[in-house]
């Protein structure tokens, strides 16, 4: 499967600050990719370069299936973090204008605008000026105007960050539908959103690539076995925890309130050993869990390294 968009050693420096350094990735057609990273990691800068709003200082971007002389922007639909419209236009006027600018005929632009506004739930507000729209409505209008020319790649910068829980839910539901129809790349600092929606993740940190791959792959490769032990917190149990000698199979030991957390290499061995010791010393266990690390933990680990 050839990539729809290929970024090679993408670099952007503002003066002496390196915002993005040597980032390479592929966006495969039909996939939904999340660009993850903490605030200030370079997500927006990367997305602005992909959208052609910023000139990279180094590296290359190539789009597949581009006819000679065709602008890559005709393949893209873009929604910035806080979309800004012409407040004096109505929602419908803006959607039609966007369609016309993308080369649709007047009739086509109107019918596309109407069906998209219907789809994002703005039909009732379509004839009102945008200046009176709420943040969630603007975000939804932003989606409609980005989709008006049926782009092959939809690029969204923090599509839900500024929204309240309800607006967030609405936009996420829309994105879930949209990813069936087109390739989606969106940035977020909320791992939960990425986990819910996407197939692939790209994690960046300080402008550099930290980790990339499909969600499944990352989950499998970086999954760690974790044992969490909670006790009643009595003195004897706490002392036992403090004195606990980790075996060779324990990779990491963290004290938590009223217990401890072990990251282990061999779950079977660890499970047997720990259960035997707990039974022998009659520790007042309230909760004992043998599980796996979550993606959240991996994300925290990757970005804070």
């Amino acid at each position: 499967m050839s990539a729809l968009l290929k970024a090679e050693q993408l670099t952007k420096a503002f003066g002496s600050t390196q915002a993005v350094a040597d980032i390479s990735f592929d966006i495969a057609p039909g996939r939904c990719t999340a660009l993850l990273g903490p605030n200030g990691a370079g997500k927006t800068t990367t997305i602005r370069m992909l959208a052609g709003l910023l000139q990279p200082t180094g590296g290359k971007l190539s789009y597949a299936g581009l006819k000679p002389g065709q602008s890559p922007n005709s393949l893209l639909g873009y929604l910035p973090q806080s979309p800004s419209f012409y407040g004096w236009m109505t929602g419908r006027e803006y959607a039609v204008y966007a369609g016309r600018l993308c080369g649709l005929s007047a009739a086509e632009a109107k019918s596309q605008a109407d069906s998209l506004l219907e789809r994002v739930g703005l039909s009732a507000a379509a004839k009102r000026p945008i200046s009176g729209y709420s943040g969630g409505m603007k975000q939804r209008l932003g989606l409609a105007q980005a989709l008006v020319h049926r782009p092959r790649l939809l690029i969204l910068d923090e599509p839900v960050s500024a929204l309240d829980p309800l607006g967030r839910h609405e936009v996420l539901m829309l994105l879930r539908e949209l990813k069936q129809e087109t390739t989606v790349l969106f940035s977020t600092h909320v791992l939960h959103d990425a986990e819910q929606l996407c197939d692939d993740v790209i994690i960046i940190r300080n402008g550099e690539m930290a980790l990339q791959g499909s969600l499944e792959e990352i989950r499998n490769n970086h999954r760690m076995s974790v044992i969490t032990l909670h006790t009643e917190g009595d003195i004897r149990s706490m002392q036992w925890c403090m004195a606990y000698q980790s075996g060779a199979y324990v990779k990491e030991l963290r004290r938590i309130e009223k217990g401890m957390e072990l990251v282990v290499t061999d779950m079977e061995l660890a499970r047997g050993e720990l259960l035997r010791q707990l039974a022998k010393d009659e520790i007042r266990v309230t909760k004992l869990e043998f599980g796996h690390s979550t993606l959240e933990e991996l994300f925290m680990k990757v970005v804070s390294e």
Partner: protein
Amino acid sequence: MSQWTIIWRKELLELARSYKLLWLPLVFLLLGVSQPIMTYFLPDILANAGNLPEGTVIEMPKPQGGEVLAQTLQQYGMIGSLIVALGFMGAVSGERSSGAASMILVKPVSRAAYLLAKWTAMLALVWGSLAVGYLGAWYYTSLLIGEVDAIRAIQALLVFALWLSVIGTLTIAASVWLRSGAAAAFSALGLALLLSLTASFLPRALAWSPGQLPGLASGFLLESMPEAAGMIIAAGAVLTAAVLYAAVWRMRRMELP
């Protein structure tokens, strides 16, 4: 329909919705009409002012129609250019800093078309307003003061329209180069002032300067044309084209938020 036309129509709609399409011609009309009326009633106004000693005799030469129109153009040269600069100082920088420009320019839209649509919308409004105001002034002048030679009057109008186009183009170009609207208006007006001051101080050395345009326009009406009329007009057109070209050049390389 080309992209340019689509954007141009949006610009005109914006001018209409923001009432610029209404108040700009109105201001020009008010300025234009007040000149002949004021001139006509000036002796009466002075006589009724009341702070003149008893028995003062006011004798004023009755001005020619052309002089009154030339004075109108002087008004337009000061207040008119101020209004043009203030009206268009945020043409690009406003949309750029709000992020509205990013939303549009991320579409397959040529940046040159975006800028040229704004520029032509500005020209249409400025020429229209100037024509409306000037025609009003001309009508009242011929009614109250005296006839003006029609060909001379139209020549003066066209030359002056070119001068306002220079100022409007400078303003739009400044709004591409500078982030602040106030700075754009200030530099456009400053440059225009510099052009006309240098032209009037050094009339020989700068005989072909576009700063001679307002003087040339009045010259048509006062029948004292500078010799280099053709060269001045050509210089004005070349300056406009060059400033516009620089603005498009910058626009193509601009990084957007």
